[in-house]
């Protein structure tokens, strides 16, 4: 396995239409489980210093709990103000009931 794939959690550790926070080194991420599969983004909102782990996941969107900025989970695109800077996304794969994130 390539060195950049890091194990996050068991697949059933994340509920459907939900997310978990994942910290690795000095970085922090959100890992989501939605209808279309598992996805990952940076953990911090691009608008203000808030972690998206407390945000609401609905369909394929994550809403920041502070000011309700909305991002697309799959592409990281900022969809609704005050969010205007896209979220960075990371590749995710599932192998043997484990979720991995590619941090490069």
């Amino acid at each position, binding site marked *: 396995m390539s060195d950049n794939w890091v194990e996050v959690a068991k697949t059933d550790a994340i509920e459907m239409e*939900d997310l978990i926070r994942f910290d690795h080194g000095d970085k922090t991420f959100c890992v989501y489980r939605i209808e279309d599969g598992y996805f990952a983004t940076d953990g911090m909102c691009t608008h203000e210093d808030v972690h998206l782990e407390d945000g*609401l996941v609905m369909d394929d969107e994550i809403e920041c*709990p*502070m000011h*309700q900025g909305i991002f697309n989970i799959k592409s990281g695109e900022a969809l609704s*103000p*005050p969010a205007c800077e896209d979220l960075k996304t990371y590749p995710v794969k599932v192998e043997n009931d484990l979720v991995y994130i590619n941090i490069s």
Partner: protein
Amino acid sequence: MSSDKKIFIIGGGQAAIYAASEIRKLDKEASIYILGEENSHPYERPPLSKDFLLNSKQENEFLFFSESFFEEQNINYINEKIEKVNFQNKELVSKNNKYLYDKLLITTGSTNRKLQINEEIDSKVFYLRSLEDAKKIKNEIREIKKIAIIGGGFIGLEIASSLNQQNKSVTLIEISEQLMGRIIPAPIANLVKDEHEKNGNKIYLNCNIKNINKVEDGFEIILDNKEIIHTEMVIAGIGSIPTVDLFNQTNLKIENGILTDEFNQTSIKDVYAAGDVSNFYHPLFKNNLRLEAYQHAQNHGINAGKNIAGFKTSYSSVPWMWSDQFNFNLQLTGLCDQYDEALKRGTSLENGIVYFFIKKNKIIGACGLGLSGKIGRDIRIASKLIEKNTDVDKKILLDENIKLNSLLKK
């Protein structure tokens, strides 16, 4: 859809720019003019009491859209003050110009209430609504230590928080028995007061100001209980009223703002209103509301844009607002008065406390307070439940250990 209609917008704030942007999305040909009194493209106001005062954001870092947006979208922003409106002739008159509109949108916003002590004192009091106001405050506080804030609403409290974080000695004076008006539950208002006091701010409740005198090194504020507060600067945040003086001599229907239906339509054909200035009919609550909040200005502006472009769209967004002070976040959604009962979820600021307001077994409002980020999801879910208008499961609302997400799936 396209036309060669001339669309004018009086007022250059958030509702204006979002309406203009929406019109352009739907109509590539219309001429769009925003006539704004401020010498700046529309910008976000929330940073004025926080990031900008704290020097963590500079001017030009909180414009809604980049400068090139206006050219790319062919939206004209003109820094101009309209002095007269003739609805019969569809004419707008400024000092040097006359404009004829096909459709008009009024987004003149609201104006700060002013203290009325005497001419000398009144001219020395600071207020906060615009970028210019914020710059004046920033300039004044450089050499000053003691600041008195009159008014315990969101603006007063946010300024108090920001100035405290700049190591100023802050005293806040509020006329009623709790902070932030009656729509915030008393326990939450008390927690906010505690947090301010823990950080060193002095808060006076139930205090009326008898007089303010200019003294050598600042001011003396005399309260009605005879106590005297010495300060170097006075900032007032005592509410605001809709900006409608331009229309007082016309037959535009005005009552606590410009009356509109759920399609942003005023009492005059081809004239619309949006944002702070509008007293609009809300189809969900079957009542009129006037809201002064960020998300409302944005979405009401967008709704006006759709209707002006010919797409009849009803505005029924559930009201929502926030306030950030120190390291905590307060949020409010729906209506928080005239309820049958209030249910409390959570016990600590660390994890967040939310009150749900129930009427006839449905959630009509919610108010929460917590460390940054902690209550947002539950408030957001409350907004969606208010919209759904379904009967509520009180057990789940009250139990911190059960996620509220399940209520959305019912």
